[in-house]
Each structure stands twice: as structure tokens, then as C-alpha cells.
């Protein structure tokens, strides 16, 4: 789902996002994206995605992350999105298999930028 090419594409898209440039000053955090057995870590600094780790080990800490199976992620990336899969908060409320892992306090402290990052992510369809 989240292969190297996709991560690069998302990185380029997010780092060119004019809104994140405005709101991202405090968005310095690492998050994980997990799909089935696959797990990536994304490191953000001041709203920019500065590093993506394809095979994170013990030395790649992250504050929080999102986990789901491939079917759920595919529905998240569908265009137009079906109801309940159209937004990260919608999925957290209505899709039981979509899980917010880690420190939810940190996630909600970054709610605005996190939400923006996930919205930009939706525009980058995995192959």
C-alpha cells in the first residue's frame, strides 16, 4: 500500500501544500501508517515531511499512527469517497477497523495539521 514511490509522491505533495506552510509551524512529530503487516514511519518537522522510514526498527519512535487493513485504506483513497470513509475523523468514529494507535493526546494536539496531512494524503492514490 505505502511503497517507496507512494511515500515520495506524498512527501512532494505535502511539502508543496500552501495550507500546511501556514499551519504547520508546530507540526513536529513522527507518525506511523500501518496496513496489515506493513508499517511505515513518517517524520515531520515544522509541517514538512522530512523523512520516511520503510522498515522502522526500535530506533524509529513515533507518537501516534493509523492502522487499518488494505480494504479500509482502499476505501479511504477512493474518489469520490464513500460516506464514512471520506475523512479521518469519520473513520475513527464509524470504521471499527481504522485505529488510532499511540498517544491520542499528541494526535489531538496536532488535530489541525494532522487532519490537513491526511486530507492531502487522500489525494495521492496508492498503486
Amino acid at each position, binding site marked *: 500500500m505505502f511503497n517507496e514511490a507512494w511515500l515520495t509522491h506524498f512527501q512532494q505533495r505535502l511539502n508543496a501544500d500552501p495550507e500546511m506552510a501556514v499551519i504547520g509551524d508546530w507540526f513536529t512529530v513522527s507518525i506511523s501508517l500501518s496496513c496489515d503487516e506493513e508499517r511505515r514511519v513518517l517524520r515531520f518537522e515544522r509541517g514538512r515531511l522530512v523523512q520516511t522510514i520503510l522498515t522502522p526498527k526500535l530506533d524509529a519512535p513515533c507518537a501516534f499512527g493509523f492502522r487499518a487493513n488494505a480494504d479500509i485504506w482502499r476505501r479511504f483513497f477512493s474518489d469520490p469517497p464513500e460516506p464514512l470513509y471520506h475523512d479521518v475523523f469519520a473513520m475513527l468514529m464509524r470504521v471499527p477497523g481504522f485505529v488510532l494507535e499511540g498517544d491520542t*493526546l499528541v494526535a489531538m494536539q496536532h488535530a*489541525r495539521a494532522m487532519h490537513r496531512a491526511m486530507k492531502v494524503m487522500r489525494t495521492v492514490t496508492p498503486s
Partner: protein
Amino acid sequence: MTLEPIVGRYMTLRVGDAEYRIYFEEAGEGIPLLCLHTAGADSRQYRHLMTDEAITKHFRVIAFDLPYHGRSNPPDRWWLEKYRLTTKAYLAFTRAVWQALALDRPVVVGCSMGGAIVLKLAVDCQQELRGIIGLESSAFAPGRYNDFLHHPAIHGGELAASYTYGLCAPQSPESSARENWWYYSQAGPGVYAGDVHFYSIDWDGREAIKTIDTSLCKVSLLTGEYDYSCTPDMTRQVAAAIPGARLVIMKGIGHFPMIENYPLFREYLLPELEFIRAF
């Protein structure tokens, strides 16, 4: 310059033991149409409806800010009491507004928590109302409350605004969804949480709504297909419990029809207003 027909005023209202300075605005003439905003927001959400001549030529449209919201003050000594909206207080306050303004058999339209309390109004005050229009109405909506809605380590305005932004349909115009974002970012600390207390903890109308008599008080229920807070199925359950209720599931709309996509919403709303007007 464009001068809008909306006129805003203040009134002082006594409800129970407290006195409130309340802001309301209005436009149009005719059947009173009282508009109730969503949790943590204010009457600005109805600004498009109030400038729609197809509506204001038949209806006197009035929208007010609940206490603690928008330009309505909390009651005196508010700092000594945690804000927690209840079904009883919400109903009493809404009724006090239409009585203070001497509105004769108004139609009450409310969205989200407003869509919940209009159901209760139709239960308790059906002789006084011409009808209700419930936008995103549910009779029971547990699970919304969480402690992060009012937390010292979280910007409550940004959290509520970001969360509710996701309640809009992805097809809604970006500028309109962002306008609602802005309104949500401006609530006082703990106000959204206090409203959610009503909507998600205190409110349970599942049995009471079965007593609504639609020969006395018309009921129209409109819910957006992208609403994940009050899903279409939740409103279908409400409609099934009220014989004679009209149900419309709005394609391409989320939780805030009157502000997130008014041009599309009015296509669904106008037939319901016409139906109630003919009553």
C-alpha cells in the same frame, strides 16, 4: 457595496432563575421560522437562508444565539458553574424565545443538536407549533463526548473546527466548509463540550418521539448522506417512529447543510417549507 436584509438585535430574557442577554437576527415576513444552530456554533450558520428571497417572501426567519454562543452572553456568575446544556434547559430556552417574540405557531428548524431538540419540541409543544424541520436529527446519539473537547493541553477551537470540518461532504464548496470551520474555532472554552453533553449524554428521545402527532405539527427530517455524526440510518429510525414524518436523505451533503452547501441544500429545503406552509 451589498447591504444584506438581515437585521440583528438584542433582547433580555428571563428563563428560570437567570437573566440572559440574547442576540438574534431576522429577515423576511410571514410565517415565523425559528432557526437553531449546531453545537458550539451560532446563528451565522443560517445567513444564506436569511437572504434567500424564495424563503423570506413567505417566512419571517429568525435565528438566535444560545447563551454562551456567538453574541449571546452567559448568565451572570457563569464562572462559578460548568456549562452543561440539558434537554430541559434547551427546550425551556427555545420556547422562551418564541414566546418573548410573540411568534404565532412558528416552524422551528434545527440542525444536529438543534435537530434533536426540535423533536422534543414537537413532543412537548406540538399544539404551539406549525411544524418542525429536523436537519441531521437523531433521537439518541451516545459516544460523542470526550475529555479532549475541553483540555488545557489541546486547542479546543482548532480541535472542534477540524473535527467538524470533516463532517462536511467532500463535494461541498471549500469556502463554505471553511466558513463553518471559522465559526467553530470561535466558541468559548468548554462550550462545544457543554453542548455535546446535551446531545450525547442527556438526550434520549427514542420513546417520546412516538407521541408526536403530525396532524398537529408537521415533521420534515433532512439528513446529509455524508453525515457520520448523525448518519442517514439514525434519521431513518426517527422517521420510522413518527407516523406521517417526511424523510429526505440529501445527496452530496454532510452535517451542516445550511452553511456547507446552501445552493444544493435549498433544493431539498424549499419543498419541505412549501409543504409546511400549505398546512
